[in-house]
């Protein structure tokens, strides 16, 4: 083989243009077509989340859930505000989980579309929006309360208190599988992974479970997870903790664990599209897998404490429209936030962000999807803008997710708040460190 093939571009040009082109690639954003019916009394709601890219599983399925929510609400005449019914229209914007694109999207949604409320996934995208939210006084919601700080006065986390609810899974595991004594954890190195690692470390410590090694952080661009799993399994942990890894990572991580002969307990924040993991590994391997997000066909969701409207019917409709295998952790979450928003707007008699926020937080309590909850977060986030109560612990049995218990996050917090603050501080995840 010839040693060197010649160049028509100089090496310097190659290096320079490669870098420049890489930067240029980051400059696209996507406005999505809105779900539209031009009614005079329509209120527009912004949906600013990743529809594409590795985090899409926590954006697009939520948007799909909102479409069902809107259809159901609009079929009944809409949301009644100030004695008048208003139909709801969602305007989506794909931020590709990029802060710059989130900023562009927020500006468009507010200035061009005139939305009254914007729902986000949050995380790495929130810093791009924070100043706009403060300047415009727009009400935003996030699924990631780690975005909260005393400065984020118009940002609420009314559904998912990620990652705090992860303590319930560990607590359940410690109560029900007392033989498990050690754990290893990995996460992608980003705004979603780190606070979740701190939470799991606190939960394991509270449960008396020892970590066999320091948390393993991997680059979000990782495609080959064999080395990650080799390291995790090197010290033979009883529990393999997959933290809040994205679905694109949970699947290959599980497959690697299976291939490298792991037979122990796995716990993870999510297990989106877990049927596919079962297919890639085996039912036996996935038996007992603990995570935090139920399928909404679960009969346990019909308990009277649960506030989510018709969960089983919602799941059936979702499966009919988009396919049961498309159900993800967030399919129901944004819709449940809309329940809260609609309730608050009705109480406020206005769809304007200020009055809605005030009505939403009135009395310091609210109707969370999984039961009545309180507005909380001062110690951890510097502001009581997270709605926290019970959270389900879900276990895969016979290849199907089943709710095993609803456990109280505030009860855990009352006993172990110092541990949580210790680990959050150690990883630089407290609101005053971010």
């Amino acid at each position, binding site marked *: *083989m*010839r*040693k060197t093939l010649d160049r028509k571009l100089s090496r310097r040009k190659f290096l320079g243009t490669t870098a420049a082109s890489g930067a240029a690639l980051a400059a696209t954003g996507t406005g999505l077509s809105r779900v539209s019916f031009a009614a005079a009394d329509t209120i527009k709601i912004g949906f600013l989340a990743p529809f594409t890219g590795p985090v899409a599983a926590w954006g697009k399925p939520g948007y799909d859930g909102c479409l069902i929510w809107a259809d159901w609400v609009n079929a009944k005449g809409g949301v009644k505000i100030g004695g008048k019914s208003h139909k709801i229209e969602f305007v989506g914007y794909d931020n590709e989980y990029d802060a710059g694109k989130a900023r562009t999207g927020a500006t468009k949604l507010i200035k061009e579309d005139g939305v009254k409320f914007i729902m986000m996934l949050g995380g790495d995208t929130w810093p791009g929006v924070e100043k706009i939210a403060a300047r415009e006084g727009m009400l935003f919601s996030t699924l990631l309360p780690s975005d909260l700080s005393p400065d984020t006065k118009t940002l609420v986390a009314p559904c998912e208190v990620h990652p705090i609810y992860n303590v319930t899974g560990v607590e359940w595991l410690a109560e029900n599988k007392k033989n498990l004594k050690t754990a290893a954890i990995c996460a992608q190195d980003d705004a979603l992974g780190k606070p979740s690692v701190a939470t799991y470390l606190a939960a394991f410590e509270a449960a008396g479970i020892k970590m066999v090694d320091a948390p393993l952080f991997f680059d979000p661009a990782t495609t080959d997870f064999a*080395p990650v799993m080799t390291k995790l399994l090197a010290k033979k942990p009883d529990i393999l903790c997959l933290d809040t890894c994205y679905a694109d990572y949970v699947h290959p991580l599980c497959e690697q664990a299976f291939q490298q002969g792991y037979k122990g307990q796995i716990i993870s924040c999510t297990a989106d599209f877990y049927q596919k993991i079962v297919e890639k590994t085996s039912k036996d391997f996935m038996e007992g897998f603990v995570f935090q997000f139920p399928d909404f066909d679960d009969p346990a969701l019909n308990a009277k404490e649960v506030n989510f409207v018709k969960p089983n019917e919602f799941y059936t409709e979702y499966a009919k429209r988009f396919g049961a295998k498309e159900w993800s952790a967030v399919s129901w979450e944004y819709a449940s936030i809309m329940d809260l928003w609609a309730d608050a707007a009705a109480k406020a008699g206005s769809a304007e962000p200020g009055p809605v926020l005030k009505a939403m937080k009135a009395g310091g309590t609210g109707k969370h999807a999984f039961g009545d909850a309180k507005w909380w977060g001062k110690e951890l986030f510097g502001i009581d803008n997270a709605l926290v109560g019970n959270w389900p612990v879900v276990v895969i049995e016979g290849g199907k997710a089943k709710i095993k218990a609803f456990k109280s996050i505030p009860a855990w917090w009352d006993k172990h708040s110092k541990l949580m603050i210790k680990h959050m501080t150690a990883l630089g995840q407290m609101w005053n460190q971010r």
Partner: protein
Amino acid sequence: MDLLWQTAINAMYAASYMALIAVGLVMIFGVMGVINFAHGELYMVGAYCVVFLYAQEKFPFLLSVAAGLIFVGIVGLLMERTMFRPLRKNPLGGLIASIGFLLILQTLAVLGFGRRMGHVPPPTQGKIEIFGAILTYQRLFVIVAAILLLAALWAFLKRSKFGWALRACAQDAEAASLQGISMNQTARIAMFIGAALAGVAGALTAPLVSPSPYIGHSIIVTAFIIIIVGGIGSLEGAVIAAVLYAFVHTFVTTFFDGVIANIVGLALMFAVLVVRPTGLFGARERA
């Protein structure tokens, strides 16, 4: 000891598919002088060939891989004819066109398969144990296939008339042309081979990764690091740098963590550029 063996096996797998991708990229750059920014997307298209043919249409896995190789090779021919040939005298234009093509391929993948990762059931769950380390048949297959494909490429370049023509064009296109070698034909061959190598890498690894329309991004970044370390334009350099990078990255990931591994990988590139600006096997530029 088990851990060392397991890590070495992991590194061999990573080196094998990275080498296929990097060699393809070098082939295209060496012969045509074009930086193909869409090379990661050619890998993605190869992976989706397996998603479609094997996972969805239930064709045999090997047939699906072969189809991926040929199909992506044909996509390469299309790129050569419609983009790179008209822009032959304008390499920067070729680069920009490849970025446009990258976005087209991503969009087509989204339209065809949705935004999320594709699902490819493992063709086999068999594995062997080597000194306490586990090597799955699937990974072994990728390693063996990569070695065979690279050996075949070496033989083609060294022994065949077309291979000589390719090397001649890469060395001096004008002189090669004066000797009666068709630039169009050699560019077609280079583009077919380069694209097919990326495609077959994607097809082979599809059951081991989560194919998504955007997987090409991380692949192309790694491929660029490798060809810069190996020496831009050097096929041997690309193979050796792929092995070097894969071993460094895998060992650092296993014994430290993945983020440090990336930093070390970039540091390796910078160190090579400082000590030897042409890369490990790159030739000095002519004035």
